């Protein structure tokens, strides 16, 4: 039995459809990320689950309970807002106690649970401070404690890390993931940051223009993107426009020819894609590989050192740029490439993606 279930959930504003027939089942204790560019409908979907926006069509269930038309205060969801929305006139403890108070839980029990929740987010010594006396990261943790203290059926997080700086964000998302799995909280996390989604979620829901493009584990959406949008949105991808020839290989618009595995039919294929880290470069002078079929002669254009990896931009004879990532740990430094050098680019047959 799924914990949260969306059936053809749609939101329309006049003629504008911002969320278009989204269907999704989320299991008990699962951590799901809604990922997409801004305006893709991910936040609207989250708000419909919280009850802050009512669905125009479709249904939403929490367990066996149909909550489609219920107001937010009858749903029992916990929500962490992007700006945290802490009550400025209440102390940290009063903020966290609010949900318990609304549920009529008696004072002594509420106090104990507030203490427990604050201990979970390591803020037990800040109970009597006001929100404005806390740092951004601390405020974020108060917002989290406030949303989980009353044991909601689902925890909803709307870009909760976007207001934090890069280092803190990394730390907080690790803590968040640990807390989530320890408490077994069913969680939906909205983000536009693919790294964040891939790092925290059990499953990622990629959205664009109100529609779900793909639902899958982080590995699935990265390695087997369902379409060109997902391939381009998640990670970096080299994409070649073209079509499948009669012989079964892919012919780019520039005239390069690549071998393809036949798991996908030729009909409707318009692009060939390969990830930068799948490509290896060989010194063009020593290489005897024949041109074509996944071994592509090219000229090095740019070499950018990026710490753990080196990004190399090469250009094919037809003028197409290709980005290649090389792990620095695997390469002796004397093997460095220089702009102008002739190389041959190749990749394993299974690395190719067709759209």
């Amino acid at each position, binding site marked *: 039995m799924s914990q949260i279930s969306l059936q053809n959930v749609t939101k329309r504003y006049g003629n504008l459809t911002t969320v278009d027939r989204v269907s999704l089942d989320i299991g008990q204790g699962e951590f799901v990320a809604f990922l997409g560019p801004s305006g893709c409908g991910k936040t609207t979907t989250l708000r419909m689950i919280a009850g802050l926006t009512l669905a125009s069509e479709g249904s939403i269930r929490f367990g066996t309970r149909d909550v489609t038309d219920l107001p937010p205060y009858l749903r029992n969801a916990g929500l962490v807002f992007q700006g945290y*929305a802490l009550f*400025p006139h209440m102390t940290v403890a009063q903020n966290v106690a609010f*949900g318990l108070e609304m549920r009529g839980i008696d004072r002594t029990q509420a106090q104990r649970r507030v203490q427990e929740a604050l201990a979970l987010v390591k803020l037990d010594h800040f109970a009597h401070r006001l929100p404005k006396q806390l740092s951004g990261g601390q405020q974020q943790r108060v917002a989290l404690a406030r949303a989980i203290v009353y044991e909601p059926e689902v925890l909803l997080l709307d870009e909760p890390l976007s207001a934090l700086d890069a280092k803190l964000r990394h730390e907080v998302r690790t803590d968040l993931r640990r807390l989530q799995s320890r408490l077994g909280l069913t969680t939906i996390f909205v983000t536009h940051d693919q790294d964040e989604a891939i790092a925290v979620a059990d499953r990622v829901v990629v959205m664009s223009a109100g529609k779900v493009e793909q639902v899958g584990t982080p590995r699935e959406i990265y390695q087997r993107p369902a379409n060109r949008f997902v391939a381009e949105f998640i990670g970096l991808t080299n994409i070649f426009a073209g079509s499948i020839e009669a012989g079964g290989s892919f012919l780019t618009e520039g005239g390069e020819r690549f071998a393809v595995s036949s798991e996908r039919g030729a009909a409707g294929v318009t692009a060939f894609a390969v990830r930068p880290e799948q490509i290896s470069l060989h010194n063009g002078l020593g290489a005897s590989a024949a041109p074509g079929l996944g071994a592509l002669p090219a000229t090095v254009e740019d070499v950018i050192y990026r710490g753990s990896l080196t990004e190399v931009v090469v250009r094919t004879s037809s003028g197409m740029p290709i980005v290649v990532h090389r792990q620095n740990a695997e390469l002796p430094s004397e093997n460095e490439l220089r702009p102008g050098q002739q190389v041959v680019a190749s990749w394993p047959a299974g690395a190719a993606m067709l759209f």
Partner: protein
Amino acid sequence: MIGGCILAFVMVLAPLVAIIWVSFFENKIISFPPTGYTLNWYAMAWEMPRFRDGFATSLKLGVLATAISLAVGIPASVVLARGRFPGREAIQSLLLAPLIVPGIVAGAAFYMFLIEVEIVTGIQVATTFTGLAIAHSLIALPWTVRLVTASLLGVDPQLREAALTMGARPFTAFRRVTWPVIRPGVVAGALFSFVVSFVDLEKSLFLVGPGTTTLPIVIVNYLEWSVDPTIAAVATVQIALIATGLIITDRYFKLARAF
């Protein structure tokens, strides 16, 4: 910059200081410098029933007008600040209109309206306390709406949404979260409502009757016949009352935050 500030400050304060000073002059005919100082004018003013009654009328009227303008203005502001409906702008302008219409015109118009009501219903309202109270509520309303709307717009709408998701019903969310945050604005609105009602002259001019004459009108009537420090004493009491109100409220609600 600093020079300008000082100049503005002096220009604002000079008349007030002059009036307070004159109220202590010994001479009946106001002349500089005074021959001595006395508190007699305050006693004199207190002994004149018209000042006492005028003061009482203005005080009652101010409190009542404030109460009515809050009762009407707070819900109106909530709708204006939150709602998205056709005609919202128009209603907003309409509620602020009394600020634009010259007081004497508005007063005359309101007087004629009350007379029409009398003709139709046969109930006298034009020179009664009821008529005045309605008029003063209208004087106060734009201030309440303006200040309360401004403070509502300053509240993060997510605060209310956070309260709702945590299980608060809309009214509880308002009482526990929105209200404490907008309270300074509401207090400022109430204070301004009271002050504009308390000092209003032009709009009340046509509407007062025997037994319902407000303090500013009593002052004007008195000034027609005599100019002596009694008037200065009455004005000083008026100034002191308003200043006390402002200072006390500022202590508790930090009025500066409402603007």
